[in-house]
């Protein structure tokens, strides 16, 4: 039975009609037109669908849209309204991504980490992105980009 829910996506309010069984991923992509969270596996195994829900990184393919009613969602489009933000620029500089499919999810997982821990260790970064599978990069340049960015902040 359809319900109307309100989602705040990247600062904009959206009223959408959903079935309770619709996932947040489906609604973001299909009804709101936010394409950056990707369909990688639909089972919560890969992290390509990662979004921030009230600041916490979640697998949007496992969140029912109706559970996000009244909540705030951030995707990478929201981080880069005026062009890539500092973190995204660091990723660009370090060739952190190749095919790019995992990139939005990784950017958000790291964003969550940096909000909690502005100067993470390599191990912190590895743990933060441990739920995001990447097949292209071997993860190294992602970690290097974050350490490089945050180490500079320390100086």
């Amino acid at each position, binding site marked *: 039975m359809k319900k109307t829910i309100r989602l705040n996506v990247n600062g904009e309010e959206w009223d959408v009609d959903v079935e*309770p069984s619709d996932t947040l991923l489906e609604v973001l992509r299909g009804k709101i037109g936010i394409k950056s969270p990707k369909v990688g596996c639909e089972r919560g195994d890969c992290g390509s669908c990662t979004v921030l829900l009230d600041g916490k990184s979640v697998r949007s393919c496992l969140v029912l849209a109706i559970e996000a009613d009244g909540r705030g969602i951030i995707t990478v489009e929201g981080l880069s309204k005026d062009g890539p933000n500092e973190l995204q620029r660091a990723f660009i500089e370090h060739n952190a991504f190749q095919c790019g499919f995992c990139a939005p999810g990784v950017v958000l997982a790291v964003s969550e980490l940096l909000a909690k821990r502005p100067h993470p260790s390599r191990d912190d970064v590895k743990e933060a992105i441990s739920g995001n599978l990447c097949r292209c990069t071997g993860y190294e340049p992602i970690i290097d980009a974050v350490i490089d960015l945050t180490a500079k902040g320390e100086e």
Partner: protein
Amino acid sequence: MDRPASACAPRWESPATLAEAAEILRDAAGSARAIAGGTDLAVRIRRAEERPDVLVDLGRIENSDGVELRPEAGAIGRMEIGALATHATLAEHPLVREHANVLAEACRTVGAPQVRSRGTIGGNLANASPAADGVVALLALDAAVWVQSASSCAGDAGAVPIVDFLTGPGESVLRDDELIGGIVFDRPSPAARSVYVKAGQRNALAIAIASVAAIFEPDAGIVRIALGSVAPTPVRAGDAEALFESDWRGGADPETLFDAVAAAAAAASSPIDDVRATARYRRILTEALTRSALDRICLRKA
């Protein structure tokens, strides 16, 4: 193969309390499912392995996701954990880290950050997988479960020890119209040291192929050992614990004693072959992980 969820058009209910949630479950007479973090249920609904008529949203219930220590209860205090506490909460909560390190460590090993921030300890317990990391730790802690039904929430008097709560792989005593109301356990002694050791196929996003939750109480001279993924439910290695208790104080050489205790723990396991590992390997792992756990908590080895 994948089955879509389009035929699944359930009604959505968002109760304010666990009691209300239980009422909805009762009224739905078996066709309702409660959803908390959704990390298990959402997958099953997508694959049409479950097609509930009603989804009971536990996400709006307040005051059921915290951790409290009641110093006056039990022998030296009792921990009360809300059913809706997430693995992330438990992994980082100062009370859990201080008083029940094994639970914090276990919760930290679950999946990955995005899974931990959503998956709840109550959901994990209700799902009743023999590999559930948090549940193995709770078993070692001699935890008990408050069962919430429409008519009541069985408090301390009716709390079900986890060992009785879990009945088989994916099975518990929980009825269709019941929910987990909370989880309680007596605080281990201040001198206690505990650890969770897990073997998986990789260092993250891994379902345990064998795990050990162990608590050492130096004053009492005992260990409590729970095993995961090597039996139909998480199990306590009673014989191994008894062996430890009888010999630890007697000045037995730790290396020899720990070898024997670890072997006894492996004997307490009844693992199966599955796509992740064979029974033979799981028995060997149980012994190795138990051994490692004892080294760390009894001898403080790294």
